């Protein structure tokens, strides 16, 4: 491998930069003097990409040892590269699950902390950081520290959702959730329009620990924002099958599809078909993969978008504003032709303790936007304007295209984050392509 010419990208493959991963089995030793660490590279934009001044990123995925597990308390301590998939596999049969589950299980503990991830149960469980008890970190001056909310609250909280910019996460200690079985009891509820969708999502969230909605974002007018709710809870021992659920990639996208395949017309066909496939159904028992990680059964699904890549876009629109933020957002989206094959709405609970943690009370909207030169940037700018006006914010883990002035306008917490960064990293050693783009770091 000629290191100088290899390419590295996030899951959206937008942008693609020159660089390569260094993937050690002994993470702590390898983390000295490193500018940025990443996990499985499932953040979408440039958060896990190196700044232009280096072509190396430390990757944690081979540092995946479980260091301690106490079945009495559910407290797990592991190296940062342990994946959520592995947590399912090892601890599911023993009656434990990660307290927060992302849309893909191919994420690492370190990445879950750095993004302070949330799941379908945010309204009851909060973000992943709420369950983290301690971190072992290589801080920017080279020391290795045990970091908790008691001994270093600023660093601990800035690291949750800090996009890997406050130090390298080497180990994570987190309390797993006790479950009666790894299976889920789920229901699907079809909803005719956006108002009903937001209302049902909010009301059903009071009854269901796991709730999210899929939205048809290609239908305009009366049916705008129609979709369905996906609701679930862990099955009791009596309801669940005895066999462990399946967790695997069943099919693969073998190569990049041509760029014209995922286009407004095909997204429209898919959205209409998908909507009609999801009629209201009564309780069904399903495994964690189809419920929490529905796309994980397709390996390399990002290749569907072809080489141009795609931009994920996720924002949260607070309840505190006039309550019309979601409607305005979809009006702008559909008016500008922002077709997205997968659009997900989620009801968010209280804000977490992470300094830059994404969720806040409100409705979160996540979109996949196939990249179209000239068009996608303008679309993101327009959506960000709606978010700023509504008092919401975007999710940095998904972002590739937001402008720094827009981020500043929606993030009054940025000054505090930068202050903590400056204290721990006065020389600005830790940087990423994202921090160069959005936080004004040197390349």
């Amino acid at each position: 491998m000629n290191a100088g010419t290899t390419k590295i990208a996030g899951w959206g493959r937008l942008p693609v930069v020159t660089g390569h991963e260094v993937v050690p089995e002994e993470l702590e030793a390898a983390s000295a003097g490193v500018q940025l660490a990443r996990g499985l590279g499932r953040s979408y934009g440039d958060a896990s990409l190196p700044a232009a001044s280096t072509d190396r990123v430390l990757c944690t995925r081979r540092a995946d040892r479980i260091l301690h597990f106490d079945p009495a308390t559910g407290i797990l301590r592991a190296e940062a590269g342990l994946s959520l998939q592995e947590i399912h596999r090892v601890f599911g049969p023993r009656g434990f699950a990660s307290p927060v589950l992302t849309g893909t299980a191919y994420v690492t503990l370190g990445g879950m902390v750095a993004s302070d991830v949330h799941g379908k149960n945010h309204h009851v469980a909060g973000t992943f950081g709420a369950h983290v008890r301690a971190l072992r970190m290589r801080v920017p001056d080279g020391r290795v520290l045990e970091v908790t909310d008691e001994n270093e609250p600023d660093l601990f909280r800035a690291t949750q959702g800090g996009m890997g910019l406050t130090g390298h996460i080497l180990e994570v200690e987190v309390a797993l959730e006790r479950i009666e079985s790894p299976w889920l009891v789920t229901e699907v509820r079809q909803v005719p329009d956006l108002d009903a969708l937001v209302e049902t999502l909010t009301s059903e969230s009071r009854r269901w620990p796991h709730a999210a909605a899929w939205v048809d974002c290609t239908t305009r007018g009366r049916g705008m924002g129609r979709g369905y709710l996906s609701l679930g809870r862990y099955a009791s021992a009596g309801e669940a099958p005895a066999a462990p659920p399946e967790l695997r990639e069943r099919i693969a996208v073998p190569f990049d599809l041509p760029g014209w395949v995922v286009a407004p017309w095909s997204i429209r066909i898919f959205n209409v078909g998908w909507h009609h496939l999801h009629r209201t159904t009564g309780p069904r028992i399903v495994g964690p993969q189809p419920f929490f990680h529905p796309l994980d059964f397709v390996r390399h699904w990002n290749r569907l978008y072809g080489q141009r890549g795609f931009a994920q876009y996720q924002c949260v629109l607070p309840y505190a504003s006039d309550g019309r933020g979601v409607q305005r957002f979809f009006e702008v989206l559909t008016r500008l032709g922002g077709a997205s094959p997968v659009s997900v709405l989620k009801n968010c609970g209280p804000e977490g303790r992470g300094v830059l943690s994404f969720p806040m009370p409100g409705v979160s909207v996540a979109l996949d936007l196939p990249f179209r030169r000239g068009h996608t940037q303008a679309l993101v700018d327009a959506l960000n304007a709606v978010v700023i006006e509504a008092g919401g914010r975007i999710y940095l883990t998904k972002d590739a295209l937001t402008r720094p002035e827009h981020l500043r306008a929606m993030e009054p917490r940025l000054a505090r984050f930068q202050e903590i960064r400056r204290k721990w990293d006065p020389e600005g050693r830790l940087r990423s392509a994202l921090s160069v783009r959005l936080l004004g770091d040197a390349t």
Partner: protein
Amino acid sequence: MKAAILGATRGMGRSLARRLAERRERIFLLGRDPEALARSARDLEARGAPAPIGTAHCDLLEPAGFEAALDAADRALGDFDTLIVSAGLFGTQDALESDAARRAALLAANFANTVQLCEAARVRLLARGGGTLCVFSSVAGDRARKPVVLYGATKAGLSAYLEGLDHRFRAQGLRTVTVKPGFVRTGMTEGLAEPPFAGDPDAVAARVLRALDRGDPVVYAPPIWRAVMGVVKRLPRAVLRRAAF
């Protein structure tokens, strides 16, 4: 199974040890780095291996310590019945040609000292009526090729020794399992150009475990490498002399 493993902290050995742990097999770890050994022991305990997992210092460059290491494994496990050796050194042909010290270390570790360790284990296993020696060689030992002249030579010697051991002692209950991995994505091969048919350590571990259960004398992993090497072994010298691989 009561398995002593040299090389379980990394790569294919780590994956294999995890599969053994999930089957609740008894494990003892041998290796160089006490911190890495302790972390791997905790990992394997958490994945199901009976705790506590003992560890002892064992370095393929220090053959004088082999007997003490095997003593420690015997004490902890109550006489091991399986020795797995997945440790070994690697260097690119260029690096080994230009660095005499590194070359000497690789030749000693991968061939002479691995054989010495196996001999020490063989004596113990035969004395207790048999057991299993599972040793990681390489497809690089199947045919001499330009990029792996020195590394391949150590593995060719090791494979020949292991085959001989199997012929001589299988009837007495000593099973020898020679693992011949092709290119596998681990810390050892990081930074090397990836050839076709590259594999992942967990898939290799699954193959090796099946071979351990069945007592297969030779296991190629990923399995496609048996066919690949079948062809490479039959290539005329004139072709290999011109080939870049």
